[in-house]
């Protein structure tokens, strides 16, 4: 549609064609990047024993073998489920607390020590500390992933709240728009737009942290558990296959999230 409102059809058609061309060329470079990566991986695998670096072919075979067993689907489902729960908690708490702290610097100061600790402590150390303090279990695993991802979304939200366009805020003040509408119609969309890259980053991070937490906590299902078993059996090709699953999971979650956000929340931007 673009700014085709008042008789600029030819210009619009040209713009759409240019956009499509750019999209096609970006797909080309992306595919080329994947091909180069696989080629390099193959070359490296030729130098080392399959025990250390299995080839792409061996990994794909291991992947097919893995998914011929229904148990593997359960592992993927368990991890996915936990990641989605963790992401939902992370996003809601990160944005809500970030907005409250963005409006009230004193609350930001209260939260600061916790945020700094979560940033400074290595994820593995925090996971071990959580196990010692709260024991093992699914709740603890999800909580670890939430705690580790929280500073990212919280910090971005605080910054975003303070960067909302002052001209828009002045306009809303002049028209005496109620505070609740101000938050819902001005702050929230502006914040979501600003922290979108961080949400995507957090989704990838949550997958990684969740699998790490599953390994450390020692759950009896999930990708982390499956990788632990593969490690015990020295099945390197299985570990590589699970890593491929991880990549696919990150891409699927990021892609799904991006689609949802673009379709629902950022439609105003994608249609411009």
């Amino acid at each position: 549609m673009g700014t085709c409102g008042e008789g600029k059809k030819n210009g619009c058609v040209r713009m759409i064609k240019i956009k499509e061309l750019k999209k096609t060329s970006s797909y080309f470079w992306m595919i080329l990047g994947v091909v180069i990566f696989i080629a390099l991986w193959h070359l490296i695998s030729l130098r080392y024993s399959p025990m250390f670096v299995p080839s792409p072919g061996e990994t794909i075979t291991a992947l097919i073998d893995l998914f011929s067993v229904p148990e593997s689907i359960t592992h993927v489902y368990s991890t996915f489920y936990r990641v989605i729960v963790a992401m939902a908690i992370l996003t809601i708490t990160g944005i809500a607390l970030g907005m409250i702290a963005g409006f009230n610097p004193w609350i930001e100061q209260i939260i600061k020590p916790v945020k700094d600790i979560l940033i400074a402590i290595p994820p593995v150390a925090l996971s071990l500390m959580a196990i010692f303090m709260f024991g093992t279990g699914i709740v603890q695993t999800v909580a670890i992933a939430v705690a580790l991802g929280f500073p990212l979304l919280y910090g971005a939200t605080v910054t975003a709240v303070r960067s909302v366009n002052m001209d828009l805020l002045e306009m809303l003040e002049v028209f005496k728009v109620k505070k609740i509408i101000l938050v819902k119609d001005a702050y929230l969309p502006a914040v979501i737009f600003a922290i979108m890259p961080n949400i995507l980053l957090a989704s990838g991070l949550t997958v990684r942290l969740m699998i790490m937490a599953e390994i450390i906590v020692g759950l009896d299902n999930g990708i982390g558990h499956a990788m632990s078993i593969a490690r015990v059996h020295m099945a390197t090709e299985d570990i590589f296959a699970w890593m491929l699953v991880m990549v696919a999971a990150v891409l699927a979650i990021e892609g799904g999230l991006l689609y949802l956000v673009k379709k629902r929340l950022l439609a105003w931007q994608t249609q411009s």
Partner: protein
Amino acid sequence: MLEFKKVTKSFGKRTILENVSIRLENNGILAILGPSGIGKTTILRIAAGTIKPDAGEIQSDLRRIGFIFQEPRLLPWRSALANVTLVLKGNKMLTHNDQIEMAMFMLERLGLKGFEHYYPAQLSGGMRQRVAIARAFVVEPDLLLMDEPFTGLDLELKASLQKMLIQLLTWRPTAIIHVTHEPQDAVLFADSAIILAGEPGRITAKIDFERKRENRDLFYVQEQAAKLAEMLTLKK
């Protein structure tokens, strides 16, 4: 009626306005001219109630305020219709359907029928400014504040927006403070004009346009604009 009595306003150590007195009757239109940074927009902000004067007194019985800024200041993530209904949301007297109806009516009056679900980025600059005008009028303002709303527009667009605004004012008269750099714009709308000059800004000249707006022909507009331009040059 809106009255500023000896209003003074400073930002930090710098005094922007000093002893500014203005009286605006209901449905009266006042133009304010003067160089950049003299405090014209500060007067609008004080009139809108977003900032308070340091000294002096403001008396006003004009409760509903509309504002047209130099830029449209639309929420980019809301459609044209939602941008207009936004300013009605706090009004408990209106149902959701009333709000939509009123906003649609204003958009239609401004020639935006069919574009109500477009986002600002999909509209041209002139259309965006028309949405901003619709937003200002939909609150049925007792006082309309205009901060150089035609600056930066090309001549054709400016003329068409001015014509629309004059039609709207004939349909629904309201008190207006119109800040502008252009003497001709001032004569087109206002009953009187004041010139701000000096450091800090003070009212240094005032002119009343004798002819009613509907009786002003091009010759009269140009003659009065030339007079204003001369006064502006002298007061610099």
